[in-house]
């Protein structure tokens, strides 16, 4: 069977696809009308990242929302967390962000928020999808049709005030940190320079901060895509470098020597910063490094593990009233005291605050974390092959503690293995972590062997 290209996906994560033939304006409009029907009219906030298709889709979504009898508050190009906080703060009925987050520029997606400015949970999404498929939309008559209000200034202010309330902004400003930024010409290009320069007093060297240009690098902020900023940091004598994804929810960090820090370590530093300020537990996904457990244990706090996916982490964070959470591998830091969503701005503020507080370099802070070795990999595969692999792994490691809540995670004395099916692509995702590189390599090779020849 040939590998299917997933150019359009309408499912529990909303609607996402390649703009043009697949993600059409009519589809976006219908989905928005389903959303408008679901939230029952009223004000709905609409924002977007800098993708070229953002303007076209803004009109399509506004059309669908108005047709459902909603009033549209159009807030322009802004980071996703900023849009979410605006929804909550303005008591709107819901919100839609047009962003395919870290996907390539030809993609776009509708991210859906409820009245609390939170991502639709799994139950809300399932209901919405049913409503979409039933096509039983509210069709507003002329007198029910609201207008479009533009509000382009209030949202960033709201967001940044909340972030700064949880750090000592004064001590950060005093340090006049030399900071580098790569905003990937995304939504962060509009708001991050002001955040770092004006609110945190940084001496800023910024690249890719033109929201009218296309993404200059791969959108996902991971080490192999961050060559430009990694080179810039030591060359321009920066103390730290930040890289965002196009919708400003994910963060990657570069230390002063130009090394891209491991995202799990960045999350660990943020968890440490949060637990120093507030009491409570931590929630991360199954694939996140054990370094989080060590950091939480040092504060006497517990770590809850969830299936992969922001919605799962958020749901558990709500259930256990967690102080902080996130997903290591993808650079997502969720700090509910600011807002229950991934927020690169909270991450930046936390790290600068820790540097100001300790007077340490970011590389030193990272080096203090317990050292783990990891290998995250993926294999293109056909559905149905995960089951045999899981059984083979359980047979191979009979003594391991097992977690089957998302694929299979095996906790071994020397480390852990996690195999799962991607939610968005026909991929098998493999993660292995251990205290030594040799152990990681050995375990990873063993998983690949079992995948090729299930016992």
């Amino acid at each position, binding site marked *: 069977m040939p590998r299917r290209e997933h150019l359009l996906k309408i499912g529990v994560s909303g609607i996402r696809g390649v703009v043009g033939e697949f993600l059409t*304006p009519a589809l*976006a*409009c219908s989905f928005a009308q389903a959303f408008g029907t679901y939230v029952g009219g009223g004000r709905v906030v609409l924002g977007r990242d800098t993708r070229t298709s953002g303007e*076209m889709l803004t009109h399509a979504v506004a*059309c669908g929302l*108005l047709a459902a009898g909603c009033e549209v508050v159009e807030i322009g190009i802004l980071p996703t967390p900023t849009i979410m906080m605006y929804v909550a703060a303005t008591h709107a009925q819901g919100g839609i962000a047009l962003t395919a987050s870290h996907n390539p520029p030809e993609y776009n997606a509708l991210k859906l928020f409820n009245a609390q400015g939170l991502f639709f949970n799994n139950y809300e999404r399932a209901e919405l999808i049913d409503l979409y498929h039933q096509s039983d939309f509210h069709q507003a008559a*002329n007198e029910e049709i609201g207008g479009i209000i533009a509000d382009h200034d209030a949202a960033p202010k709201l967001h940044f005030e909340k972030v700064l309330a949880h750090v000592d902004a004064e001590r950060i400003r005093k340090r006049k940190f030399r900071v580098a930024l790569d905003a990937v010409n995304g939504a962060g290009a509009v708001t991050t320079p002001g955040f770092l320069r004006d609110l945190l007093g940084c001496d800023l060297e910024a690249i890719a901060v033109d929201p009218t240009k296309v993404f200059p690098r791969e959108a996902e902020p991971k080490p192999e895509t961050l060559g430009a900023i990694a080179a810039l940091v030591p060359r321009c004598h920066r103390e730290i470098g930040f890289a965002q994804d196009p919708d400003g929810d994910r963060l990657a960090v570069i230390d002063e020597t130009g090394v891209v820090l491991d995202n799990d370590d960045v999350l660990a530093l943020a968890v440490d910063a949060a637990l120093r300020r507030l009491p409570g537990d931590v929630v991360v996904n199954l694939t996140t490094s054990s370094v989080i457990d060590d950091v939480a244990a040092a504060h006497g706090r517990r770590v809850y593990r969830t299936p992969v996916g922001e919605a799962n982490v958020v749901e558990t964070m709500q259930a256990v009233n967690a102080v902080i959470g996130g997903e290591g591998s993808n650079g997502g830091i969720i700090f509910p005291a600011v807002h229950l969503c991934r927020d690169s701005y909270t991450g930046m503020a936390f790290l600068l605050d820790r540097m100001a507080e300790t007077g340490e370099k970011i590389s030193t802070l990272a080096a203090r974390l317990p050292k783990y070795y990891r290998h995250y990999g993926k294999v293109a595969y056909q559905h149905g092959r995960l089951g045999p692999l899981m059984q083979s792994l359980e047979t191979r490691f009979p003594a391991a503690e097992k977690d089957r809540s998302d694929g299979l995670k095996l906790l071994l004395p020397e480390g852990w293995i996690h195999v799962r099916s991607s939610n968005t692509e026909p991929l098998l995702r493999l993660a292995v972590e251990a205290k030594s590189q040799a152990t990681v390599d050995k375990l990873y090779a063993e998983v690949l062997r079992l995948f090729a020849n299930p016992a």
Partner: protein
Amino acid sequence: MVTEAARSLRISQVGLRGVIGAGMTAAHVLDFASAFGTFLEPGRCVVVGRDPRASGVMVREGVLAALLACGKDVVDLGIAPSPVIQHTIRRLDAGGGISIGASHNAASWNALKFFGRNAIYLSTAEANELLDIYHLKKFSFVEWNQLGTLLTDDHALDPYLDDLAAVYDFEALRKFRVVVDCCSGTSSLILRRMNDRFGFQFILINEKMRGVAFAHEPATNKDMVALQLAPLMQPLGADAGFLFDADSDRVAFATENGAAISEEMVLPMLADYLLPHGAGKLVITNVSTTALVDEVVVRHGGEVIRVAVGRQAAIDALSTYRPEQIAIAGEGTGATMMPQFRFVYDGIASMLALLSMMRERDAKLSQIVASYPRFSILKGQVPLVTHRIPALLASLRERYADGRTSVVDGLRVDWPGRWFHVRVSQTEPVVRIICEQRGDVPRELYGTLIELVRSFA
């Protein structure tokens, strides 16, 4: 049970029209505008404007999304009269345009009207192609890095007025004291600007543009004129009074002594004014329009071409002649197209032509109206029962076999000084009945016709 509002949806050669929500939905708008974006030749921008209906914002958003997705650069004029949209298409040498608005329908309706290159209405062949693309739903959406750009143009009005000023003597016409019922529509934009820029003396009523509750239905007919406009004429000492529909393409009028004049008079009067002025000797109109047109045109040695009702038939007829052969084209609804304005329905131009006529003849409007033989017309409608239409027409034809019949569109029967026309509406699910007679109102014939048509409902 299909409600009346649901049956309002009309997808035809003329475009898309219906009651918003129950009939015409966002999905229709997206698909129709996507079909138009696919239909147009690549490379030229598209001009978009709307009338003030609240639903116009929703419809505009859908139109913009679809056109941008087809790779079209779009110039959005915001709220703009149809003639101004059409003028802008020519000025920018755009590939075409869309006017969002249901002109003379109630506020609950909306519609898309399509214009091609040079702002002309689509021919039947083009309109059919557009419909085929719409039904096929295979649209030419471009890739993410070729999407269109949205532009705005806040200065479309003045170049349009410059063109009007080149044809009409503004200096002379501005001395008239004119009351205008804007019907909460877009004509106020033009007229207010004419007052400010050229010193016209338009007194505007129902001027404020409204999205929901129009001051009254924007129908350009005698009854509407009689309702609010005619009684104001004498108290205000006005020379003339005009009433526009929501997008300013149709007009009706009242005389200085407060008489509401049938909308049927607009075309014969303009023909009377234009025929001696230009080379064109042809007047194109439909089979439902007053017989006065024939009398006037014959007087000037011209010729009347009668086609089926609806803009499409008029456009197709126009396209078979050279522009200089034509004096005017129009219908009894008060919608006329003049060659000076490249055959665009333009109520403002029609009004200026009537004022120019008053000036040239140095006559009061009532005197001009009184100079024509009197015809009385009655118009009505009965709900449509589609499958009985052929039987109805056959029965009428047999009953009135003594007259001269035409089947260009439904059935028209003529006797000397008297005629009637029964046809199925293209825009609403009704049968329309019109009858006219020289002199007094043909009440008896009309009553019989209504009864006959009802007996088939």
